[in-house]
């Protein structure tokens, strides 16, 4: 059984990635924060007695399920929003929080390099958002979470063959989209290695 300190360390390690993955999936930063928080609480509540080694897979599974729940609720909500949208007013004077704009400093010193990297990542993020959900899920688990094919298959609830197919298609689709933006595989690999 994992101690509270171990849980805290584990969550600290995964929370940023989990948040970004959720943002790519749901395209809403506030909803993503809620989803990650829900997933964290569910892990702590339902699997307190599980050993620490099982946490990465459990957390990913909970996170994916919470995202699916979000989409289901969103479908119902969208139906009502569509119906009532003609009566509502547009939000144009949205308040901005100064904290929102403060980013943690980039390690790279060279501003040109920073800009290039930042632009590349923005393109990748857009491309990732365009991927079909299952391909994105497979890509994120396999390459970002560094799970092996068997673990990814277990989290996704599909066969290992399907994981390989999803991953392969995801990488090809991403490569194609990046190629269109003038970012060849070599550039990506170089930048990825540097990071």
């Amino acid at each position, binding site marked *: 059984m994992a101690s509270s300190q171990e849980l805290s360390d584990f969550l600290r390690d995964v*929370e940023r990635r989990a948040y*970004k993955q959720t943002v790519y999936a749901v395209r809403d930063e506030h909803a993503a924060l809620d989803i990650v*928080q829900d997933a964290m*609480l569910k892990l702590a509540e339902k699997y*307190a007695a599980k050993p620490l080694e099982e946490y990465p897979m459990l957390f990913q599974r909970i996170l994916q399920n919470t995202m699916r729940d979000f989409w289901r609720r969103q479908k119902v909500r969208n139906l009502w929003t569509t119906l009532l949208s003609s009566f509502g007013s547009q939000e144009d004077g949205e308040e901005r929080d100064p904290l929102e704009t403060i980013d943690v400093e980039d390690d790279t010193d060279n501003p040109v390099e920073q800009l290039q990297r930042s632009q*590349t*990542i923005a393109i990748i993020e857009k491309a990732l958002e365009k991927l079909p959900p299952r391909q994105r899920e497979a890509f994120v688990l396999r390459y970002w979470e560094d799970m092996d094919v068997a673990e990814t298959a277990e989290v996704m609830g599909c066969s290992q063959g399907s994981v390989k197919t999803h*991953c392969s298609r995801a990488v090809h689709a991403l490569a194609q989209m990046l190629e269109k933006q003038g970012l060849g595989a070599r550039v990506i690999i170089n930048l990825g290695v540097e990071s």
Partner: protein
Amino acid sequence: MSQIQDNTDHSPSEEMQGKAIAGLLNSRAQQLSMRTLKRLEEARMAAVQQHASQLSGYSVHQNGTLSTWFSWSQHPRLISAGVLCAALIVGLTLTQHMNRQIENSDAFLLGSELPPEAFVDRGFEPWLNAKVEL
């Protein structure tokens, strides 16, 4: 389908490309706004608190298995099932009681020397009492 799956095994370049993209995404994940980081920290702390309270509710039996104290009280389904069972038992008892009463009254009517119509007639009992007094 299996043909496709076999053909899409990860090639080294594909693996490298995937890892490189993930590496770049990971570097972006390290540059979140302070507000987001604060929210994540709050979420983490809430989860850790929840975990600590869950752990304090666990007891270890002699054979090494774990169980939670009063864990049933945290499960609304169990409570609902308990209430439903209690309602069923009460209903069954009441039905049996009523059946027994009906059986007794049937036996009384059948065993009586008077015809059943005599018990329905409201004037019969005063008439009978008057007869007895005479």
